[in-house]
């Protein structure tokens, strides 16, 4: 079963731009080893990081069908920063992986314990009705 693990962050610039080099390095090293572990386990389907919320645009079609863009957004709003797509045997395994990602080290090596949203992909194929 496939799950998307979504890392959501507050709007504005990414906070780590204010971190020390050492903290940032530690955070990157953690992600690298976490991703390597997922790869070796044969569970990683896809992984992407997104540009920061202060770069985001909201787009809707105007009456003429042309795009109307909107941004920058209030910092209170949550934004998707990146995601993992994993293929695992059980939901519990997906939650476990999300908890590990959540505890990525922040300033001073303290776990960030950030919110990871876990969503199951629609299954395919469908069972007979």
């Amino acid at each position, binding site marked *: 079963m496939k799950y998307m693990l979504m890392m959501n962050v507050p709007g504005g610039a990414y906070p780590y731009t204010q971190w020390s080099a050492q903290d940032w390095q530690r955070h990157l090293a953690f992600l690298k080893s976490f991703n390597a572990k997922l*790869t070796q386990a044969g569970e990683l389907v896809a992984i992407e990081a997104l540009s920061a919320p202060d770069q985001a645009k909201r787009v809707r079609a105007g009456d003429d069908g042309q795009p109307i863009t909107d941004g920058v957004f209030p910092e209170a709003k949550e934004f998707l920063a990146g995601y993992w797509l994993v*293929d695992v045997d059980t939901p519990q395994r997906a939650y476990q992986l999300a908890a590990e990602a959540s505890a990525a080290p922040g300033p001073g090596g303290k776990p960030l314990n950030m919110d990871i949203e876990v969503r199951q992909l629609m299954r395919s194929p469908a069972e007979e009705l």
Partner: protein
Amino acid sequence: VTNVQHLLRDLAPQVLGMLLRRYGDFAAAEDAVQEALIAAADTWPREGLPDKPRAWLTQVATRRMIDHIRAESARREREAAAAEPSQDETPERDDTLELLFMCCHPALSPASAIALTLRAVGGLTTRQIAQAYLVPEATMAQRISRAKRTVSGVRFNQPGDVATVLRVLYLVFNEGYSGDVDLAAEAIRLTRQLAAKINHEEVAGLLALMLLQHARRPARTGPDGRLVPLAEQDRSLWNTRLIAEGVDVLQAAVGRDRLGDFQAQAAIAALHADARTAEETDWVQIVEWYDELVRLTDNPVARLNRAVAVGQADGPRAGLAALAELDPALPRHTAAAAYMHERDGDPVTAARLYAEAARSAPSLPERDHLTRQAARLNAQLRS
């Protein structure tokens, strides 16, 4: 798929089983067989089939295996023995059964066992397996090599666990069809091979179940990709040859009087296959088989299906009463309740429950189906 490819896929697990019995070392043996397969796929179409294709493959794979063993300096001592394969090997001995048990070893996770089985026993390429399961090829390669490492310590020829093998094969069957590999057909092929090798009533039960379910596949989706529920299927599209075979296999299995989960499920599928129209379905007998299935497995999904069958046999009120005894969080509980409320003449409740079921549907076609049911009832209620 050409004949050469078919032949190679049949022979590959036999050669691999032989190498494993002789030398152990799953990873190296599998690599050696893959190389031999590539050589054969290159040579045979050009130069014609060798007189003894299996002997040809065995020879090439054995040579690769010996090269590998020679290259491993730490294994010098085994080299002498390995370099002289005994000539008195029974050449047509079949080791694929042991190989299948190894690939479905209980130490492996379901996903790993599936990947290893399709590759080592099914003879599929890593790319084909990756496409079938919609994951990147590199991910599938990692999964397979990890699985190989897990079973590398398992001694070949150990008695295997039939139940685990059957679970793995049924999981493959249910994955259906995506990419260029028909996994349902592949699962049937492997289960047929297994049934030909061991006389086990549940192996036959699973084969019968697969055949009977597969027979309905042409009728299961409409031309626009919609799911067509069993009751609405065009039964003239059912494959009568598969049904006849499934019923034969099932009868032989049930005759042994050692009932099991798969035989009971196959018996239910056979009763559906036996009805020329949905109205002719023998729901009373189906309920009896579900009682048997619940007794055998105590599976909550079986209980839910039983409640639906009770609704058909004894009316929607009885079905709703049976449903009320089950955990409402069960998959399809809400959809089943919606269906029975509609039959009970309560379209308001049915429409509400169909909409609720659509929100938690696990697949897009199912969500589509439930959403249309809700819309149909809501339109009726407005007019």
